[in-house]
């Protein structure tokens, strides 16, 4: 075992030596590429860091293994503060982020931090929101669910994997608002520790509907346990998910995408920023990454560099407005 490990090590070392020659002329190459996953192993951010790190290395886009560091706490706030306060000019560092990051920034849940303190690098895909019911539910469409809520808000419990005010909650409120529910604060949302737990309670009959990401729901959809009544995407997806009706085509103009991407330290050099933007862009366009997206239910969201920064700024602003409206943010 030991000998073969050493051999593998030597092979890896040989690649490391050769890689800079193979890569095109870059102004910047990270010596110790590092990705902070602002959560414990096992979550979406951890997945983003590890999968992107692995794919970048497989494709030879980074010279050595991406070191993944789990820095959990405060729903990503600890990592954000660490980057802003202590590692503000680290060129080798990227940090996994998602809609949850934007949500917390918008709701001032990272005390004293704002989105312009870091540089937004790019997205690697999006996970569109779904609203689903148990397979044996009488509810067939999103408008039917919304009518039930309008009639008696206390009769419909909707569960999701984020805390109250979190992205899963906001998605269902966006839909309720578009559907004309007068006071969205009456919509009964029950928070669970994860999407899987909420689906289990949906199947157990404790809940009437589930709000979450497509990737959380797909396993249960394939097995026939739950039924997606609305996909919160601008248009229908291709392939195996093409049967899901969008909320928009049911007359409720609600879109909720949980994007996954990265930010870097605020004082990162322009050369390093351009380097990371380019690598993520190249990764995104590769067939290998397309396969990863396919396997994990990630939908396209091709935004890097300036465009991505713009996109994050807009979503922070939208969430801030919504949060104010529903009273989460005073």
């Amino acid at each position, binding site marked *: 075992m030991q000998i073969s490990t050493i051999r*593998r090590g030597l092979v890896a070392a040989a690649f490391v030596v050769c890689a800079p020659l193979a890569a095109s002329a870059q102004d910047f190459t990270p010596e110790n590429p590092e990705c902070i996953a602002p959560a414990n192993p096992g979550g979406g951010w951890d997945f983003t860091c590890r999968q992107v790190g692995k794919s970048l290395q497989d494709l030879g886009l980074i010279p050595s293994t991406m070191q993944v560091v789990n820095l959990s706490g405060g729903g990503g706030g600890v990592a954000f503060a660490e980057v802003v306060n202590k590692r503000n000019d680290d060129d080798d560092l990227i940090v996994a982020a998602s809609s949850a990051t934007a949500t917390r920034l918008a709701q001032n849940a990272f005390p004293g931090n704002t989105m312009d303190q870091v540089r937004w690098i790019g997205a690697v895909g999006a996970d569109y929101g779904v609203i689903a019911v148990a397979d044996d539910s009488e509810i067939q469409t999103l408008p039917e669910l919304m009518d039930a809520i309008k009639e008696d808000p206390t009769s419909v419990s909707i569960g999701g994997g984020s*805390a109250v005010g979190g992205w899963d909650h906001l998605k269902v409120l966006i839909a309720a608002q578009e559907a004309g529910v007068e006071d969205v604060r009456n919509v009964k949302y029950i928070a669970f520790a994860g999407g899987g737990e909420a689906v289990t309670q949906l199947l157990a009959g404790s809940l009437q509907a589930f709000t979450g990401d497509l990737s959380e729901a797909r396993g249960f959809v394939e097995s026939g346990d739950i039924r997606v009544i609305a996909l919160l995407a601008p248009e229908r997806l291709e392939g195996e998910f093409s049967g899901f009706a969008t909320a928009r085509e049911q007359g409720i103009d609600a879109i909720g995408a949980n994007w996954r991407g990265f930010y870097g330290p605020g004082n990162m050099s322009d050369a390093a920023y351009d380097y990371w933007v380019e690598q993520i862009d190249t990764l995104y366009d590769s067939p290998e990454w397309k396969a990863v997206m396919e396997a994990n239910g990630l939908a396209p969201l091709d935004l890097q560099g300036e465009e991505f920064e713009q996109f994050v700024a807009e979503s922070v602003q939208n969430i801030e407005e919504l949060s104010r409206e529903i009273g989460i943010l005073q």
Partner: protein
Amino acid sequence: MELMSNLADGFAVALTWQNLALALMGCFLGTIMGALPGLGPSNGVAILIPLAFTLGLGATPSLILLTSVYYGAMYGGRISSILLNIPGDEPAMMTCLDGYPMAQQGRAGEALALSGIASFVGAFFATWGLVLLAPQLVKVALLFGPAEYFALFALAFATLGGISSTNQAKSAFAAALGLGLAMIGVDTQTGVPRFTFGEVHLYDGIDFLVAIVGLFALSEVFIFLEHRGTDQDISTKPKMVIGRIVPTWSLIRSCIPTMGRTTVLGFVAGVLPGAGASLGSFISYSMEKRLVDRKGTFGKGDPRGVAAPETGNNAAAGGALVPMLALGVPGSGTTAVLLAVLLALNITPGPLLFTQNPDVVWGLIAALFIGNVMLLAMNIPMVGLFTRVLLVPPRILMPIVAMISFVGIYGISGSSFDLMVMVGFGVMGWVLRKLDVPLVPVILGTLLGNEMEVNFRRAVNIANGDYSVLISSPLTILLWTIAVIGFVLPILVGGLIRRRMRMARDAEGGVRD
């Protein structure tokens, strides 16, 4: 016999040289990681994820390596519980209660060997349980709604009373302290931070591992520092004798009923999402104490008190894999990490896993059987090696404990704030020990408190504020009935039994106080 052919296919996958070598490596590393205080199964698995990826392993070999680490850590956790009175990982904390007294009586070797056998029994039958019941057990999990979970946790606390202390009031105080600590952090039902004092590090609450390492490992170091150089310390520690390493058959036989009962109990506790191995060992210990502890020997080095939690936590480890594989809902912290590995390997756990990736599932199950046999073989002859830890003088061991505690905790979160919290817990543990308040209920309160509160509020919330929902189903009524009996019975009968015991001892001309 589709099941058997599936299993045979699984063994064909697992019995390659590479997979066997990986299982062996995983078992060995897992045992060491489990034995080191602070490095539990979850971080053990987490640390080895990069290794699996750098070696370029496929899905099945990666899973075999990591689940071997998981099972190995469940075995390893008992070693430091017995030898040092510091749980190597969370589920091993109940093993301290009788394992350490056994070691103090010079029966450390026996305790280690017995717990190795108990671990094997628990894990072996739980793996069979996984094979036979995985598809069916998914339905049992569906019977547990928020109200049922709340009743289950209430049951756990109601029977907590006499577990780790003779003084029920001190146990209750410790549990209340733990429940209070569990309230720190952002409340998920309203999004409002509680007791965080604007400190972003506290938003996620107190990390259970930080608390346990501080309370158990660091307080041990503080106690050592306090007695440093005094006669007491020098005279007590080196006197410890390891004793015979192979337990007698009669000793094993006396534990067989205990192992049988706790396998079932631990397995069921493992299957319930969120409960995990800690609850398995805790429930196993308290049930056995209630059932067979007629002479009050539990907590004073009763072999059954060692067998019960070890069987229970290993059975729970197997049980926790059921919802992880079948529902994609992790049954414990470690299975949550394994879930992440599955996702990273492009395998979607869930109801379809058994049909879509049978080679992965059955290969993994076969590897669990193989790993378990390896672990038993590794743990019995190596008991002698492990007991040598005892011969290391405290002045060398304690700095190592301190170092591993700091490195281990920093390794999980990478946050120096957690280190300060850990030291805080160390001081608290030291004070509580001085006051003779048991530490286990504090940890259980911290561990279960949040889930208990959240499920209570979910249940009432879903029922629009109607509290009667808490006893609305037959299952909740059953759980509450057991909880009430478990709480009231010791109070009513306890005095009577104690009086009888005193009389019995007087009749024997008892020497003990």
